């Protein structure tokens, strides 16, 4: 699941633009006394409220030998607090028809809650409890460890997930960014209650968190209620965090044998972080190469012209401290080499010849024009607000975005393709029936 987490960021961050000055895209912001950043936007159309909490407690904080700790901590948040058992929590939520989920990515853990307005107090109290008073009961730890181990096994039957895991391992060797968020079976089995409690106490702190709330409630009401409900939630030690050092692994070819009808292919290398000054020009370039769905070159050459794949795309996923570039596709075993060759050829072509004025304009039109449409649910709005805060894009970001994209010229795209697509560094992962998919000697 972890790559989805990054993908979500990118999906929503790529497409900003247009009617950005709309008030609905600019939440009210306040910082509570304990350091929690609160972003709130009133949407009175429906009697519901959506919460999205991000907290700097992702798998990059896993101690060595305890890989999977952040994920297990997040999962256990809703399995027992000082005043409620796991079953009582589930009963409370189900009785009001609310949805509450918690999980971890590489950088962040997240908690999502959606409920009816009339149940706001019930939900806020529960949210406060899991953030300040989770107790990690031994029996629940055992249960969740079993469940995580089952998830680790289950992902082995998903070829796409195997390909992603192998790609990230090769790209970020010896780094938390190269590991699955869930960890491995051995690491998970070793995790004990003390470590969970320590992780929770150290990282689940209000000054490490962003809470975005969208729905039938005012900023002031939320602020008052949260101040009350979270009064026992104290700031952490506040030690300055070093940005992690990451060095990318070398070009390589990795073949994984599976009795499949299709080869699952991932080709890529290191990308850029979200804060990189060339982020926008890279996104425009990638839209043309393979990010633009049916409008992309890869879709044309791999799918439409040759019928080699149903799905093919490229992405520059950009997180706080790392980024990746990848092309992903599936094709019958026998055409794996052809599909890889064509993808490589498209990478070469955009580096050598750049893009046409029409392609550039179409990319800009989509990125700018689709922006206001992308945040068409409370959940997406909440997630957008939290990300803008986390990536420090500034409250005027929606207004700036169209200009950032509009200013991009063909020569910028060419320069970006030449600099950020690096054929000599490509890591190629092929999960397939190798007997059929490998080039004949």
């Amino acid at each position: 699941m972890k790559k989805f987490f990054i993908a979500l960021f990118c999906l929503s961050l790529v497409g900003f633009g247009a009617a950005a000055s709309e008030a609905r895209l600019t939440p009210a912001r306040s910082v509570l006394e304990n350091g929690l950043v609160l972003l709130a936007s009133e949407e009175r159309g429906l009697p519901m409220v959506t919460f999205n909490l991000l907290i700097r407690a992702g798998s990059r904080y896993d101690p060595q030998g305890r890989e999977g700790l952040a994920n297990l901590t997040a999962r256990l948040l809703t399995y027992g607090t000082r005043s409620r058992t796991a079953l009582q929590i589930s009963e409370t939520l189900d009785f009001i028809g609310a949805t509450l989920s918690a999980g971890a990515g590489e950088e962040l853990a997240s908690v999502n809650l959606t409920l009816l307005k009339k149940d706001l107090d019930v939900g806020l109290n529960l949210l406060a409890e899991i953030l300040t008073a989770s107790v990690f009961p031994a029996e629940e730890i055992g249960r969740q460890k079993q469940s995580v181990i089952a998830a680790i096994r289950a992902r082995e039957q998903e070829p796409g997930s195997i390909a992603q895991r192998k790609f990230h391992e090769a790209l970020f060797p010896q780094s938390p960014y190269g590991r699955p968020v869930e960890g491995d079976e051995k690491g998970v089995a070793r995790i004990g209650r003390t470590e969970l409690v320590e992780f929770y106490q150290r990282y689940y702190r209000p000054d490490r968190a962003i809470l975005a709330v969208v729905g039938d409630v005012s900023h002031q009401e939320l602020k008052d209620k949260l101040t009350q409900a979270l009064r026992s939630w104290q700031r952490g030690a506040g030690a300055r965090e070093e940005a992690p050092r990451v060095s990318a692994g070398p070009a390589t070819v990795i073949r994984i044998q599976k009795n499949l009808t299709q080869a699952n292919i991932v080709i890529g290398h290191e990308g850029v972080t979200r804060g990189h000054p060339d982020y926008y020009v890279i996104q425009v370039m990638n839209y043309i190469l393979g990010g633009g769905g049916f409008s992309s070159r890869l879709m044309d050459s791999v799918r439409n012209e040759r019928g080699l794949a149903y799905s093919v795309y490229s992405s520059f996923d950009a997180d706080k401290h790392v980024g990746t570039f990848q092309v992903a596709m599936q094709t019958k075993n026998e055409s794996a080499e052809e599909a890889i060759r064509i993808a490589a050829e498209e990478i070469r072509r955009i580096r050598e010849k750049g893009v046409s004025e029409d392609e550039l304009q179409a990319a800009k039109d989509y990125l700018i024009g689709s922006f206001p449409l992308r945040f068409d649910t409370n959940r997406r709005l909440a997630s957008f607000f939290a990300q803008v805060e986390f990536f420090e894009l500034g409250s005027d970001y929606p207004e700036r975005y169209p200009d950032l994209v509009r200013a991009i010229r063909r020569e910028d795209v060419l320069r970006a393709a030449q600099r950020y697509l690096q054929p000599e560094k490509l890591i190629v992962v092929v999960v397939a029936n190798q007997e059929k998919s490998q080039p004949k000697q």
Partner: protein
Amino acid sequence: MRFFIFCLALFFAALAPRSAPAQPGKVQEVVLDNGLKVLLLESHKSPSVTFQIWYRVGSRNEQDGKSGLSHFLEHMMFKGTDKIAPEEYPRVIAKNGGRSNAFTSSDHTVYFATMSREKIGIAIEMEADRMANARLDGGYFEQEKKVIMEERRLRTEDNPVSALAEVTGAVAYTVHPYRRPVIGWMGDIQSLSREDLQKHYQTYYAPNNAFIVMVGDFSTDEILEKIRAAFGGIPRGPEPPKVEVQEPPQRGERRVSLKKEAELPFLLFYYHAPNLKHPDSFALDLLATILAGGRSSRLYQDLVYQKRIARSVDADYGGLAADATVFSVTAEVMPDKEPLDVERAIGSLLGRVRAEPVSERELEKAKNQIEAAFIFGQDSVFGQAMRVGQYESVAGWRHLEEYIAGIRKVTAADVLRVAKQYLDPDRRTVGTLFPIKEKKQ
């Protein structure tokens, strides 16, 4: 299912199990002279507008040996008209800031676009154009066939749970076309011809066999004018042939096993059940929620939480189908646990719900869950349009307005009665996925 974004559509549908107008009567229905029905629901909470056209044709309308025809046609509908070049449709939508796609199910084929109010007219015009003038260009036929075969490999051949659902469905129905997969059997896809597609198009793509659903930020009068201008001139077609096949009653359990490379066993129970036109549909929805809605539900508590023999469980009443349908129960088996033990545990729980009435609190909880989900479902314009379309396709959209009242009326005795009647072991088909070890090369 032209692209993997289809997952998104499923996701919306899942998020919006019961989306509907907040107040009854807000959907405006207009029928054009050529028989095209138009359903319009204004919603001004975000600037997007969803336009969907639903053709009343899916795998249900296909013949043996021609499975997958409706889906293949859906792909070929993107190969242009006299006005629009092949594959140009999604590019035009994207250049105007919109997103577009299509999907096929057993009962219908749906094309959709989400755009701003100012731009949605472009989608309306192009959709009208291809209702009448699709070229189904033969020059693209063979490539697209390959694409669809890749799609089938991706979705079914290399996905053990989908493969199980396909083979179990083929046994649960003996004569009704629901026994055939929507994407079609591989052999059938291979042998379909361009003439098959043309005939299918001529038979089913007419205004009197379609309806439009629009939800979002538009004015009804203005949009109706656009729809009339675009679609009004397309002549009514002959009435398409009706599907009158009736599945004979099942007498005795059927069992299917699938042995395939996989990590975890999977269990699938299909019980025959009526569709939502039947008054029992409300009680069947509640029964599904009582069994598997949330972590406090019966199946989850017993199999996942207490016994720890299943990794996940689900129960789903598939009432949104044109003909008699199935109530399904599924479980993913934990590593090192026996499918038979899971089957027994499910059997014993279903036995209980057929023997004793549920408590008032449990019933109230399930009603609250359904009602909350109904409101949450209105958060997305796409999700709302999907639900209006599904209801219209099966029973008429007005059934939606009675939904919550119908749910509220159900008693514990009703739930007991439908459980007894429909969850009869003699009327079920049990499919089991038995993982086999990867064959070494």
